[in-house]
C-alpha cells in the first residue's frame, strides 16, 4: 500500500472541507479523484502535506504514519505535488525551478535527472536560462510536472494538470501520465475537471462531494455509472 487515508477531517477556520475521507492508493496505480468545484479535491491533496493539518484521522504513506509530520518533511518521504494552477516560480529560470525540485534527493543525480526531464519535455532544454514566467500555460505545466519529478517521488500528485490548457497540451499531459505509469511504474493520484479523460487513464477513481467520498470504483465502472455521467461527464458541472 502506497497511501492510506483513514477518517481524515480537515478545516479552514469554520469551513469543514474534508469530512471523514477514506482513500487508498496501491503501488503502481493511477487513481483519480473527481468532483465539482469546491468539493475538497485540492484540500485532500494538500492535507497530505499538513496544509491544512487534519483535525482527526490518519495518513499512512509507505508504511509510515505521516499525519503529524512537518510540511517540509513530507516530500522527503517521497511524495511530490504538482499544485493546482502550476505555481512554478515565475521570476526564476527554468533551471532554477528544476533545482528547487530536489530538496532532499541525491544531488549527484541532478545532471542525469535534468537530462531525463529535458528529454521528456524538450521545450525545457532550449530555454534553460529563460524566466519561467515567460513560458506559455502549457509549457509552465510541463515545467511544474518536471519540477515534481526531479525528486524521484514514489507518489506523484497532480492537481488539475490540464486546466486551462490548449488541446495539444491536454493530450500531452495525459500521455505523460500514462507513460510515467506504464514505463516507470509511477504511482499517481490525479485530480481532474476533465473527468472523461481522467477516468479512461485511471485504474480506480473516487468521487468527492462536499468533502465526502460518495462513490468509488474502477475507472470503467464510474465511466458507465449513470449518476456519474449525469453529474460529471455529459456536460454536467465541468
Amino acid at each position, binding site marked *: 500500500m502506497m497511501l492510506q487515508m483513514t477518517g481524515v477531517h480537515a478545516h479552514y477556520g469554520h469551513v469543514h472541507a474534508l469530512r471523514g475521507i477514506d482513500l487508498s492508493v496501491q503501488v503502481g496505480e493511477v487513481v483519480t479523484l473527481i468532483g465539482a468545484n469546491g468539493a475538497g479535491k485540492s484540500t485532500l491533496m494538500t492535507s497530505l*502535506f499538513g496544509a491544512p493539518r487534519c483535525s482527526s484521522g490518519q495518513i499512512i504513506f509507505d508504511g509510515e504514519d505521516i499525519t503529524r509530520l512537518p510540511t*517540509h518533511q513530507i516530500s522527503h518521504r517521497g511524495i511530490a505535488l504538482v499544485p493546482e494552477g502550476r505555481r512554478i*516560480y515565475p521570476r*526564476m529560470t527554468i533551471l532554477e525551478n528544476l533545482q*528547487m525540485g530536489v530538496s532532499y534527493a541525491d544531488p549527484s543525480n541532478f545532471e542525469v535527472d535534468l537530462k531525463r526531464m529535458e528529454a521528456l519535455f524538450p521545450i525545457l532544454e532550449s530555454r534553460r536560462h529563460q524566466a519561467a514566467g515567460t513560458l506559455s500555460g502549457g509549457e509552465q505545466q510541463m515545467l511544474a510536472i518536471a519540477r515534481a519529478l526531479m*525528486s524521484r517521488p514514489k507518489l506523484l500528485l497532480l492537481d488539475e494538470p490540464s486546466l486551462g490548457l490548449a488541446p495539444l497540451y491536454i493530450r500531452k499531459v495525459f500521455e505523460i501520465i500514462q507513460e510515467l505509469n506504464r514505463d516507470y511504474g509511477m504511482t499517481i493520484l490525479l485530480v481532474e475537471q476533465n473527468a472523461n479523460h481522467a477516468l479512461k487513464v485511471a485504474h480506480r477513481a473516487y468521487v468527492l462531494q462536499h468533502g465526502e467520498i460518495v462513490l468509488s470504483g474502477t475507472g470503467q465502472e464510474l465511466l458507465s455509472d449513470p449518476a456519474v455521467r449525469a453529474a460529471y461527464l455529459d456536460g454536467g458541472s465541468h
Partner: protein
Amino acid sequence: MAQALQQLINGLTLGSVYGLIAIGYTMVYGIIGMINFAHGDVYMVSAFIAVTTFTLLAALGVSSVPLALLVVLVVAVLFTSAYGWTVERTAYRPLRNSTRLAPLISAIGMSIFLQNMVQVTQGARVKPVPPMLSDGITLFTSGSYSVRISSAQILIIVLTVVLMAGFTWLITRTAFGRQQRACEQDRLVTAFLGYNVDRIISLTFMIGAALAAVAGVMVTMYYGVVDFYIGFVAGIKAFTAAVLGGVGSLPGAMLGGLIIGLLESFWASYLSPEYKDIGTFVILIMVLMFRPSGLLGRPEVEKV
C-alpha cells in the same frame, strides 16, 4: 564645484549606511510581506554593542585600530543577528497567519521595547567612543576649500561595496539564495517541495540584521557618538530608501540608499542643515503617492 565634490563623498558614505539598512527592510518585506518597523532599532542596538565592545577593548589595552574594528564588527554582527532572529521568533512568527495589521503593531511594539531596553540599560545620554580613522586624504584644495575623504569614509564605502557584491552573489548564485527567492515567490509551494520555510525566514532576518550591524558599527566609528534614538531616524531614512528603490527589490534598496544619502548631504550643504531630513520625507510621500512600486520595484500584485 569643490563643495559639490565634498558633498558627493559625504553623500556616498551616508548612502552606503542607508543602503545596508534598507536591504533588511526590503528582504523581510519580500519574504513575509510586512515592514519590520523594529529594524531601525536593531541597527541602533548594534551601534550600542559596538560602543560597548570598543570600550571593553580599550580597557583591555587593545590599541590597534584595525584589530579593534575587526573584533567589534564580528561581535556586533553575531549579537545583532541573534537579535534579528529573536525579534522574528517572538514578535512575528506567532502572528504569521493572523491579520495583516497584527505583525505591524507587534513590530512597533518591538521597536518601542528595544529603544526602552537600551535606554534603561545604557542610559539616556549619548555615548561617545574615541575618534578613529579620522585621518584622511586631501584630494585637492581650491581657494580656502579643501576636498577631503577620511579613512573612515573610505572604509565605509569600500566595505559596503564588498558586502553588496557578496550579498548579491549569495542571493543570485547560491542554493540558499535560490530558496530565499523561492520563498518570496511562493512560500507554500516551497514548503511542499521540502524546504523548511521557517528556517529560511529566520535566516533572512539574521542576514538583514547582520548588514544593519555593519552599518551600526560604521556609524559609531564615523560619528563617534550614539544614542538610543538613532534607530528611529536612520530607520525612517533607510525605509524611505527601500520604498524609493521599490520595496522587495535588492538593487532598489542599494540605489535608494545612495539617492537618500546624496540628497541629505547636498540638502544640508546647499539648503539648510537643520532641515536636511525634510528632503527624505518629501521623497517618501511623493513616491508613495505617485510611484508606490518605486524605481526598480515590480508593480504591486496582491499576494494570494
